[in-house]
């Protein structure tokens, strides 16, 4: 399976990701993308910006393990994961996951599983600039629950 993992401060382009997936993963039929962006409010407070920190080396290794798990479960043609780090503004792109597959149901499922694992297993941390001051975000229980659902379905991670 074609794969590309990138941790970068620069923005990304979905059109370029689609071009690369087409070029490197044959004629897959369908591609599912998920893009996460910086919200302008959180916990009922205005958010003026975000700073994203990560664990260089481990982050890339974790993302590779997540793609391994997805590839083991579904017949995929290609996948890209791009995650931004550093200072971001409300509305900015944070993360892109794109999965190409012959059948669209598999592209949707794999893309969602990769996002769910990324949220709980990839070593990124967000610090938010809010009106009441800067604060590190807390992990969400709901993200942990989603992971348990995949585990029950037999994802090997």
């Amino acid at each position, binding site marked *: 399976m074609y794969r590309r993992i990138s941790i970068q401060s620069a923005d990304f382009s979905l059109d370029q990701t689609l071009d690369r997936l087409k070029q490197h993963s044959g004629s897959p039929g369908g591609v599912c993308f998920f893009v996460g962006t910086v919200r302008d409010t959180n916990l009922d407070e205005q958010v003026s910006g975000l700073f994203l*920190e990560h664990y260089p*080396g481990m982050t890339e290794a974790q993302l590779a393990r997540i793609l391994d798990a997805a590839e083991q479960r579904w017949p995929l043609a290609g996948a890209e994961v791009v995650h931004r780090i550093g200072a971001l503004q409300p509305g900015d792109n944070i*993360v892109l996951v794109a999965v190409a597959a012959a059948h669209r149901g598999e592209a949707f499922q794999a893309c969602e599983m990769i996002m769910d694992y990324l*949220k709980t297993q*990839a070593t*990124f*941390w*967000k610090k938010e600039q809010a009106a009441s001051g800067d604060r*590190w975000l*807390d992990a969400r229980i709901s993200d942990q629950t989603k992971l348990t659902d995949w585990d029950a379905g037999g994802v090997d991670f």
Partner: protein
Amino acid sequence: MKVLFFAGLRELMGESVIELDIDTSLTVAELKTLIRLPTGESLASWSQSQSLLAAVDQAMGSDATVVDPGAEVAFFPPVTGG
């Protein structure tokens, strides 16, 4: 042994990396008793009231994971990317 800290824990520790002079293998749980916050409290004690994750050689670990003297260990809060 290299020990890294990230995010809120890094700010609490006041540094992002420390070098420990340890020449035998030990568990993550044992390592946590040896590391002290600037307040003097051990990481083991602190982590009883705070969520704390550990990685050994860039893979997720648990209290029982064995750490070799040359390993890279990291401690951090639950991740919040995506």
